[in-house]
């Protein structure tokens, strides 16, 4: 690949990984088949993992692959399979019509523009505070990043780390509460809504 000679390897990695990310993200949005969309998400997550690796965030890259590309996407696929993939979503007839598509595009561009503007306004120097060069929490070769992470989790962020478990308890209790089976005949006759029989399952 002689045409790549002279280019910094970081740039090549960045451009390739970035392309994979963007193509995957577009695939998520543009694919009509939900399974293809979910699989495109893997490409995006993989690209992000490569970007993390390029920043020497090895642990983050591994977690990105294991948790996101592995567990989360598999979960997505699981739900899609449970709901039935034979019914490909026809986006042309659903409620996403009118100005909604345009509004979504404008909002998306706006959200992208916000950090870019904020970044540009600071003259390319995003962080006001720099860790002192001597601090070991800077990216150094001497302290491995897993050790740094572990130390943060059990000191500075100990409380945050522990109370995350409350969220999991709520998720379990909430799932049990909301997943109970209710007979359609038991529905409350609510004058505010259409009769239950007309409600699609």
């Amino acid at each position, binding site marked *: 690949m002689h045409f790549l000679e002279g280019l910094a390897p970081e740039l090549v990695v960045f451009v390739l990984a970035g392309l994979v990310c963007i193509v995957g993200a577009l695939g998520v949005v543009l694919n009509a088949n939900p399974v293809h969309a979910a699989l495109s998400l893997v490409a995006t997550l993989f690209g992000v993992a490569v970007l993390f690796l390029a920043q020497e965030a090895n642990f983050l890259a591994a977690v990105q692959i294991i948790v996101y590309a592995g567990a989360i996407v598999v979960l997505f696929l699981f739900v899609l399979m449970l709901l039935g993939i034979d019914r490909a979503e026809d986006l042309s007839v659903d409620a996403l019509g009118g100005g909604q598509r345009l509004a979504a595009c404008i909002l998306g561009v706006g959200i992208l523009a916000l950090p870019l503007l904020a970044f540009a306004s600071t003259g390319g120097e995003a962080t006001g505070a720099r860790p002192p060069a001597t601090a070991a929490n800077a990216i150094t070769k001497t*302290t491995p990043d897993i050790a740094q992470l572990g130390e943060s989790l059990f000191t500075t962020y100990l409380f945050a780390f522990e109370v995350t478990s409350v969220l999991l308890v709520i998720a379990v209790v909430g799932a049990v509460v909301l997943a109970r089976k209710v007979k359609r005949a038991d529905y409350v006759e609510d004058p505010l809504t259409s009769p239950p029989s007309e409600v699609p399952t």
Partner: protein
Amino acid sequence: MLASLWQQLSDSPVPIDSVDLAWAGLAPVMILIGGALLILAVDSLVPRRLRPGSYALATVLLAAGAMVAAVPLWQRVQDAERGPFATAAGAIMVDGFSVFATFVILSAVILAALSFDGWLRREEMDGAEPYVLMLLSASGGVMMASANDLIVMFLGLEILSIAVYVLAAMHLRKITSQEAGVKYFVLGAFSSAFFLYGIALIYGGTGSTNLVRIATYLSATVLGDSGLVLAGLALLLVGFGFKVAAAPFHFWAPDVYQGAPTPSVAWMASGVKVAGFAGLLRVFYLAFSTYRLDWQPVIFVLAVLTMLVGSVLAVVQTDVKRMLAYSSINHAGFILVAVQAATAAGVQAALFYLAAYTFMVAGSFGVIAVVSRKGDIGTSLDDYRGLSRDRPVVAFAFALLLLAQAGVPLTSGFFAKFYVITAAIEAGSSTLAIIAMITAVISSYVYLRIIVAMYGAGDDVPAPRTIPLPAAAGLALVISLTVTMSVGVFPGTLASLAERATPVLIPESDPGAVDPSGVPPGP
């Protein structure tokens, strides 16, 4: 990559200094979480459902226990020698402000639990889960009120909210309840994302998520350009604005309040709002006080919009739950007026308002829970006609609570509004004070409309019906009414408590505490 990971794993472990946890400071949160888990465990171990009412009793006892645990904290932070303290490596701040907010949140738990009891039995949904979710939600609220780190603030917000999403969608046999849950969840998740984005930008701009370190950094450094910090602040404000239902982030509130189970709404309107405002004050008033001149105008606009939307749109509603939803938006606007003042008097006014408002609104929704029929229906204004004849005492109590919300003298609502307006004028925001008073007049029409419906006579009064009043709901009504009226006559006690509930920023000074920069001891 794998080789390097393996290398890291096989290296000898780095010793870590353990974090000094002041357990007393965390006691209210621990009691709430531990109690919730205990209720779950006991409920799953006994073969049959426990005696009806035992869940509510356990919840009330737990909340009261957390209050008892908070009393020594209050004494400690008011003690000149010991004073407020940070714990858990600077993640949690125990000061007058956090303890005061904890008391208010726990009162909301007690009132909502009492209201839940009879309601759940009427709907044949009695069980441990709603109480467990509410206790966990309250623990998130207490975390928000005492958070000293934006990450803890975010986790508190999520713990608070996710449990409430479930509480909103809990009535599985009612489609509007499901709708309320989904709406609240989708919009809430959206606002949480904004909040998190804001935290990321602020971390980028200041290099820390710790409120003390952010404040120290911002006061010591003049940022060449504060674009990142301002953008982050704006996004945080979106997150908080959604939680407290401030316009223009209020659109979920009427639909969710109307569809969700009424006792859940009592919790949503009281506890969740208190936690949201406590977090808002902590972040904006404390950590970003150097940016006061930047965020005050924004809060000014939000307050005006919120008060106007809340009062004007309430007038055209015909459903009592929707009316009170808009009126709670109006109340949020009033508290924003106090936040906008950004003075110690403003914080005091906001805390007084939150405390008074909690009892008024929880009591009001308690009445709605009693008056509605099985299926949680019958909340339109017409359903309240003739209430003074069917249930004279309940109607009278409801009328008093509504008058308190309107700010009639001799009720706590009067002094709440009085302190807010005084704080706004002292801070030089007379315009805001005038707008606040005008909207108070507009929204009093709404309250009077409900009272007229209850006491009105004429041909459109429906036939008498029996409205059962569960003992627990009656107790909640008595508590909220007693507090509302006694604070209205003797506001001094609550006002002086609120005055001493000052939020502070101090770096953790516990001996043996770890340096928050996370500098590890050398290998």
